C-alpha cells in the first residue's frame, strides 16, 4: 500500500500572520512557520495504518519554497518513510490550479494507492486541492472525512455535509481529505528525529515534473489588490460588582442590539 500524505508549511496561527502589501504573498519573515496541524492529522492516519499493516509505504509530499526543508523533516521524524519536496522559483505565488498540477505530477511520478490531505489549510483556506487532484489523477475523491477506514482496495469514512451525514466509500486508488475530528499527530521522539536524517528526501523542480508555470492555455487566478484592515480597538471593560448583567443589558439596549 503506497500512501502519499500532503503536508504544508504555514505561518503559525498562534502568531501574527502578515501579507506583503506589494506582492500579496505571505510575508514569510514576519511569522514563525509550522507544519499545518491538519496535515499532521492526515499523516497520523497513514502512520497508524502503517503501524498495523506490513508493507505500507508512507511518503510526505509538499510544495513549498526552499527554506521549508526543516518543517517537512518533521513529517519524517513523526514516521513517514520518504519526503518529496516540489520546489521551484516559478511556483512563487502559484494559484490553486498550478499548485494542483504540480502536486498531481509529483504524485503520478511516485505511484500511489491512497492520497491523504487535510480538508483545508490554515493559510490558503481554499479546501479545493483534494478534488482538483482527484480530477487530474482520474480517481475518486472522498473529502471532509471525520472518520476513516482504510481497507483492502477500498477506503471508507464518515462525511458530514450541510444537510446531514454521509457514509462514503471509494475504490483505491483514491484521494481523501480529513477534518480535525481525526486524532492529533504524534510527537516525534528522539529516535524518529535521528532516523529522519537518513530517510530519502527528494527535491523536484517543475522541469522534473514536466509542468509549465506559464502555460498560456491555463487561466490563472491573480490578485488585484491587497489591503490591511486596521486592528480592532478595544472598548470598555468593567469588573462585575454584582450588577454587570444589568449594565450589559443597558449596553445592548442602548446600541439597539437587544
Amino acid at each position, binding site marked *: 500500500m503506497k500512501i502519499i500524505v500532503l503536508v504544508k508549511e504555514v505561518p503559525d*496561527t*498562534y*502568531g501574527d*500572520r*502578515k*501579507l506583503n502589501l506589494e506582492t500579496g504573498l505571505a510575508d514569510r519573515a514576519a511569522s514563525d512557520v509550522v507544519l499545518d496541524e*491538519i496535515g499532521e492529522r492526515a499523516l497520523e492516519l497513514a502512520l497508524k495504518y502503517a503501524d498495523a499493516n506490513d508493507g505500507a509505504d508512507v511518503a510526505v509530499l509538499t510544495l513549498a519554497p526552499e527554506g521549508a526543508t526543516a518543517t517537512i523533516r518533521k513529517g519524517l521524524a513523526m514516521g513517514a518513510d520518504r519526503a518529496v519536496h516540489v520546489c521551484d522559483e516559478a511556483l512563487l505565488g502559484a*494559484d*490553486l*490550479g498550478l499548485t*494542483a498540477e504540480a502536486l498531481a505530477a509529483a504524485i503520478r511520478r511516485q505511484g500511489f494507492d491512497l492520497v491523504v490531505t487535510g*480538508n483545508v489549510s*490554515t493559510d490558503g483556506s*481554499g*479546501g*479545493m*486541492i*483534494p*478534488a*482538483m487532484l482527484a*480530477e487530474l489523477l*482520474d*480517481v475518486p*475523491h*472522498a473529502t*471532509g472525512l471525520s472518520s476513516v477506514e482504510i481497507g483492502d482496495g477500498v477506503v*471508507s469514512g464518515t462525511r*458530514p455535509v450541510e*444537510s*446531514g*451525514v*454521509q457514509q462514503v*466509500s*471509494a475504490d483505491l486508488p483514491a484521494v481523501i481529505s480529513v477534518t*480535525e475530528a481525526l486524532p492529533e499527530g504524534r510527537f516525534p521522539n528522539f529516535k524518529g528525529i535521528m532516523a529522519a536524517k537518513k530517510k530519502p528526501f527528494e527535491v523536484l523542480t517543475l522541469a522534473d515534473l514536466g509542468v509549465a508555470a506559464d502555460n498560456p492555455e491555463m*487561466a*490563472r*487566478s*491573480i*490578485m*488585484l*489588490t*491587497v*489591503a490591511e*484592515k486596521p486592528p*480592532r480597538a*478595544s*472598548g470598555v471593560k*468593567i469588573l*462585575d460588582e*454584582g450588577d*454587570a*448583567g444589568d449594565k*450589559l*443589558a443597558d449596553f*445592548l*439596549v442602548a*446600541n439597539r*442590539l*437587544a
Partner: protein
Amino acid sequence: MTDFPRDAILVVLETSASGVLEDAAPGLLGAAAAAGTPVALVLAAPGAGGSAATEAAALGAAQVLIAESADPAALGVPGVDALAAAAERVRPDAILISHSLNGRDLAGRYAVRSRSAVSADAIDVARDEEGVVAHHSVYGGAYNVASTATFGAPVITVRQGSIDARAAAQPEVSETLTVVPSGKPAARIDSFEEVVGSSSRPELRGAAKVVAGGRGLGSQEQFELVGQLADALGAAVGASRAAVDAGYIPQSHQVGQTGVSVSPQLYIALGISGAIQHRAGMQTAKTIVAVNKDGDAPIFEVADFGVVGDVFKVVPQLISALEARKK
C-alpha cells in the same frame, strides 16, 4: 430557451435530500445579480428538479437549467459533468458556487477540467470594466484581497452567509439540461442520515447575532446557558474549539480558523479566552461583547464591551434584565 444573457453569471445550486435548495441559494443569487444576470444550474435529487427550479426563480434566477442526477449515489462527479454541460451552453462571465464541502469539490474538479481559474472563499463579488472580481477576507479578517482570472470565466466559491444582497424574484423560465456522463470514477454514498434542523434557533452562518460559549462553561449541561441567552436575543449559538473538543456542542457550531467565520452585528463570547484562532472567525463582527473571569484574557483586546466576571452570575442576570425590559 436557447439564448442566454450575454452577462450571464452561472450559479450552481444544490438541493438537499428532501429536495429544497441549499441555504446558500439566496446569497449566491443575490451576489450574481450584482455582477450580471443570474442563470441557475440546479443539481437536484431525482424528481426534485421542478420544485427547486421554481424556488430558484423566486430567488432571482432569470433562467434555470435542471440537472437531476442519473446516479445520485455517485459522489461529486455527476455534478461536475452537469456543470461542464451548463457552462458550455450558457457561456457565463463567471460561475458562482457555495464554499461548502460539496461546492469546493465541484469548483475544484470543474476548474481543472475546464482549465478555468478558481477564486476560493469570496465574501463579495463585483464587476468592473475588466470582468468579474472576487473579494476575500484573509488571515482571519486581517486583510482584504481582490482576485480575478487572467482570462475566461472565473469559478468563484462564495463563503456561506457572507452575502446580504438578495435578487428580485423572476418569472420561472426553466428547462432540463442534457448531460453526457464523463464516466470518471467516483466515490459512492453508501448511506445518508439527514440532520433535521435541531432547533428553532437561527443558522450560525449569516446570523445577525451570535452567542458563543467556550471551555469556561464547564460541562455540556451548563453550556445550555449559552442557548438560553441566545434565545433571549434571537441569536445563533457558536462555540470555541475547546468547547467542541470537550463535547459540549457539535462541531458545526465551531467558530474560528478551522470552523465557521462569522461577521454578525453582535457577537457575545462567554467563557472564551480569545485565542488567535478563535478571533480569526469572529473579529470582523460589528460589536463584540465578552464575559470572562480572567481580566487578562485576550478576548478583551477585541471586545467593545467586556465584563470581567463569572458567566454563571452575569449571564442569568443579563437574561432576566432583558426579559424584564421586554415586558
